[in-house]
């Protein structure tokens, strides 16, 4: 190739490279943030239970495989997700609820009306455990393995589809049944 042809192709190549990055940016969701807690132990906490305020819950109880689901009554997406959680619980999947910045009475009423898929609920009124986990919106779901290590974080609603395609493989990977 002649020298000038080579030179003139530089802007074209530069354009293609830029175009590739713009296209990538267009297809990615900027509101999805990677979790910094992956492959780390659940941060230490001491919080009361939702159902029983006298109950003392700590990170030592969080040995999975289990799902830690961050939910609240003020979160409309959580309601969308709720039937899916109930279905998962029916299939023998352990789900621990993290009731996040909520009002106890409202949360208990919500579970009465919509059903309760949670083995138990941690009552995080001040959002302290939420902050330590890096929660930035509900619903969020953490996959926690038998050693209490966070394996994956899903931000947003769990749907039957993304459970099948994304979370179920991860669940099995960390030894989750059934």
């Amino acid at each position, binding site marked *: 190739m002649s020298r000038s042809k080579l030179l003139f192709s530089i802007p074209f190549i530069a354009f293609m490279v830029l175009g590739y990055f713009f296209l990538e940016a267009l297809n990615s969701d900027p509101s999805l943030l990677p*979790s*910094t807690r992956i492959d780390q132990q659940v941060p230490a906490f001491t919080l009361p239970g939702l159902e029983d305020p006298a109950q003392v819950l700590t990170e030592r109880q969080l040995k999975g495989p289990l799902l830690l689901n961050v939910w609240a009554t003020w979160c409309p997406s959580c309601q969308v997700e709720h039937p899916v959680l109930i279905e998962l619980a029916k299939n023998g999947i352990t789900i621990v609820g993290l009731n996040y910045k909520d009002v106890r009475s409202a949360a208990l009423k919500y579970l009465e009306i919509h059903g309760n898929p949670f083995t138990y609920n941690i009552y995080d009124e001040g*959002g302290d455990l*939420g*902050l*330590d986990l*890096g929660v930035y919106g509900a619903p969020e779901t953490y996959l926690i393995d038998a050693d209490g290590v966070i394996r994956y974080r899903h931000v947003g609603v769990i749907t039957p589809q993304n459970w099948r395609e994304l979370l179920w493989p991860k669940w099995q990977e960390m030894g989750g049944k059934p």
Partner: protein
Amino acid sequence: MNRLLWVLLLASGSVFATIDAYEFERYEDEQRFRVVVEELRCPKCQNQNISDSNAGLAKDIKDRVYKLINEGRSNSEITDYMVERYGDFITYRPPIKPSTWFLWFGPLGLALIAVVILLVRKLSAKPSEPVAIDADKHRKVEDLLKKLDDIDR
């Protein structure tokens, strides 16, 4: 009058929109709080800093910063604390590491490449050959110069 308005406008700088009920024992701590909270980005309400945001999460982070400052933690310790929880996204000053090298050094690199190209072009350019002028043309130039001198006078 107009000029005075401009001066006032330019001198006003950044203004805090939020008035928070955070009371500090020491003035320096209050200043530190403002600096830290301005440099943290809200993970929920993206493109707002923690200071400006009224989101619940921003309030929680402010509360935690307040607590950490009163515990005597330094600004960089507090930023690291938040990065540990929310990742690099939360700071407006991305750290220097392989994935951000292009961000930090890209502009400098491009400027260097431009300088190198200019230098190479300058050095490799052949000096133009002197053009021979015959006696006839030389006389014409002399005449023109003389005319110019006459006009100047």
